[in-house]
């Protein structure tokens, strides 16, 4: 009996422990699932980086940007992650406050964005504007403003993402807040009437939209580029809203407890290289942050007249209260 038991335990440990055969240094990057998926930019970027680093780059895919941060907070000082990739400007202050991230020493001068990027912890890797995407063959008169969508268009069915788990969802929450201010409760209630479902992550809602379950889905102004370039379809459009569009800048940071700091810093510089940035437009379907050439189709995209954003500190301070506002509006 004892022998069988110990055999069983050995067997279990054998099966349970992953085998570390590779002697190469391994760089672990936590990111969101669509970045790391087969059709996302992850695999190409991994191949590019491994060409010269003599290392093994591994993406650990989590549901969404918020999950990436929460996973780090749960693991604390003993995280396996060397790099977090996929937090955004709204989460930066909360992420910094955990004290689990370290500063980088990357040359930021190649960044070409409308605002000057000076952050010592985070390096941006792409940016974009949230927008509701629709199929112009089915919907011929899209709303012209967020207010029109919320207050007048009872004929529309929409899908968006949960602000607690998804960065686009959080983006919509902040977009609504910046347009409606203190009257956001009423607006959420009106929006709830046209909401088919609130999904956990972006991928689920976008695939539901493509299956025809809703008229509009919360995504990015750049999403139509995917359909034009990858599928040759022109019917998918982003609705341009007169109030302006909420901006998202996606960022990466090095984890303080990382045991591969040197490699991690190499990866951080790699983020701003052409090899990485050139994969963004047609891989993650966002705007690159450096001066790499954009595909022609990007010229046909809606470009917001006004970009909205809250400061990351303000979001960190008020996110909880604003999320509660959203929750309560949806319960009655």
């Amino acid at each position, binding site marked *: 009996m004892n022998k069988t038991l110990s055999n069983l335990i050995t067997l279990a440990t054998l099966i349970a422990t992953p085998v570390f055969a590779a002697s190469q240094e391994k760089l672990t990057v936590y990111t969101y699932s669509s970045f790391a998926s087969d059709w996302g930019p992850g695999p190409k970027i991994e191949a590019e980086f491994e060409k010269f680093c003599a290392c093994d780059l591994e993406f650990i895919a989590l549901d969404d940007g918020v999950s990436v941060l929460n996973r780090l907070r749960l693991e604390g000082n003993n995280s396996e992650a060397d790099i977090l990739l996929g937090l955004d400007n709204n989460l930066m202050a909360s992420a910094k406050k955990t004290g689990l991230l370290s500063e980088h020493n990357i040359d930021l001068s190649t960044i070409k964005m409308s605002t000057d990027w000076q952050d010592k912890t985070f390096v941006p890797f792409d940016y974009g504007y949230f927008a509701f995407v629709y199929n112009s063959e089915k919907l011929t008169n899209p709303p012209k403003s967020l207010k029109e969508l919320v207050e007048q268009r009872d004929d529309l069915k929409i899908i968006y993402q*949960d602000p607690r788990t998804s960065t686009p969802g959080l983006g919509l929450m902040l977009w609504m807040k910046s347009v409606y201010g203190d009257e956001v409760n009423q607006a959420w209630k009106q929006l709830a009437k046209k909401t088919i479902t609130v999904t956990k992550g972006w991928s689920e809602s976008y695939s539901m939209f493509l299956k025809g379950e809703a008229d509009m889905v919360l995504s990015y102004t750049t999403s139509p580029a995917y359909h034009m370039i990858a599928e040759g379809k022109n019917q998918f459009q982003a609705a341009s809203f007169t109030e302006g569009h909420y901006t998202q800048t996606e960022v990466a940071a090095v984890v303080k407890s990382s045991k591969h700091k040197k490699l991690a810093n190499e990866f951080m510089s790699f983020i701003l290289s052409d090899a990485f940035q050139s994969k963004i437009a047609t891989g993650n379907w966002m705007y690159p942050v450096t001066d790499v050439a954009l595909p022609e189709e990007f010229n046909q995209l809606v470009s917001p007249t006004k970009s909205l954003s809250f400061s990351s500190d303000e979001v960190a301070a008020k996110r909880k209260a604003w999320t509660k506002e959203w929750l309560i509006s949806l319960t009655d």
Partner: protein
Amino acid sequence: MPLINPLTVFVRLLKPVQIPGLLLSIGIFLFVLVAVNALFAYSPVLEVTAILSDPYYRHITTFSFYQAALSTLLSVLFAIPISHALFRREFRGKALLLKLFATTLVLPVLVAVFGLLAIYGNSGVLAGIFEYFDSILPFSIFGLNGILLAHVFFNLPFACRLFLQALNAIPDKQHQLATHLGMKHWNKFRFVEWPQIVAQLPHAAGLIFMLCFSSFATVMALGGGPKSTTIELAIYQAIKFDFDLQTGALLALWQICICSVLAVFIQKLSRSSSLTANYQGPKNTFYHDSWLAKCWDFSWIIVISLLVIPPLLMVVIAGLNTQFFVVLTDIKFWLAFKNSLLIAFFAALIAVSCAFFILLASRQWRLIGLNGYADKIEMLATIILVTPGLVISTGLFLLLRDIGHFSSLALYIVIAVNALMALPFVLKSLSLPMLHNAQKYELLCASIGVFWWHRFYWVEWKALRRPILQALCLSFVLSVGDLSAIALFGSHNFSTLPLYLFQLLGSYQMQSAAVIALVLLVLSVGVFIVVEYLFKERRTQHD
């Protein structure tokens, strides 16, 4: 006369064979306390009143009670005519139907949810029928509707079994007397059958209420929007979505309080009876059968068959689709499959071993009439019933996170929590057989000096092989289908079959989800069939 210290009496009465069980029981209790406390340590102030002043938490508390009450009402109410009909009628396939009833409670929740979605979902069979007639499905399965439907699917058959067992316990004499007195349907129901059902009613209702109140996977899959969230799910959301440990701890404390009150209440309501798989009651004879009564009974039997059979059937039908081989050749499937088997196997082994030792201790007390001690030691080990599994796994992880990595710890924590969650059910199913065995052989063993290993092999194992293996199966199936212990740890790199199924459902890959649901169904039903088959073989060999 010297004063006798109660502790000395306790120690003097304690036999060596009881010590491991006693230590285990206390160990498990402390283990749970420490894990829960680890989470509480992250929240400086724990004021349950804060929940009552927060409109959102007030809403989910009300919703938890509301959906549990409705689910219980529907399950218990419909179980009365259905069990009555099943009691009075014999028909082809009755035994099979009752076997199906027994599976609904141990069936992995998500498998049932998948089956229900395939029938009642937006693109399910029913929606297809409506579409054929150019109309649309008048309800949505997501939200309260779906939660109620799933809870009734799980618990109505369970309530039916409880009531049926009570009805089967009516002595022959009463049936004869009723016939002599010329009682017709209504009067016989009122004076003979109803009192039997009523005796079971509080216990059944209490149990079902508790199960629905702390339901997690069902609500996560079918509700989950802010409107239809239970406390159990809100704990998960606070921890996983917001990493708000303080709110998580607060809600956990709130849930533990409510569940403890409920548990005590149920305990007070009635002494529980154990469900047997044997439904052979006395031959039920009644001489005033009528065409109308037949119609009434069989329509109820049809109703319950329509509730239970189609979703299970759909799991099988939908599972055999074109994606079948694609999924089965996917490495992700095999990784999840491996994790599920590992977790379920070890959790079952741990749960049954713990239960065995704990029952060795408690039955010794029962033999000498100290039922109070016996109840208490068993209760210590079943504390998990009032503690959300997720809270324990989070607490454990926070305790251990400095000594190991997430991915290496996750597996062990999930095994431990699953073992804990299976333990109450194993204790319940093993306690009677073990007590009977002791009553039969305790004195014999003492007189011929059979102890320890010999006693285990020649007395316990020889007689209890079947219940032990059944308990192993039960805990295996419970663990293989569990979603609450793994929920926190799941990622695209570490998943189990239920979690993989949940991810696929979440991303609307219904075809692949169908395959996983079928695999889980086969796995959980198959284990029971294999064990049953093994025993049949053995018995024929012995004869």
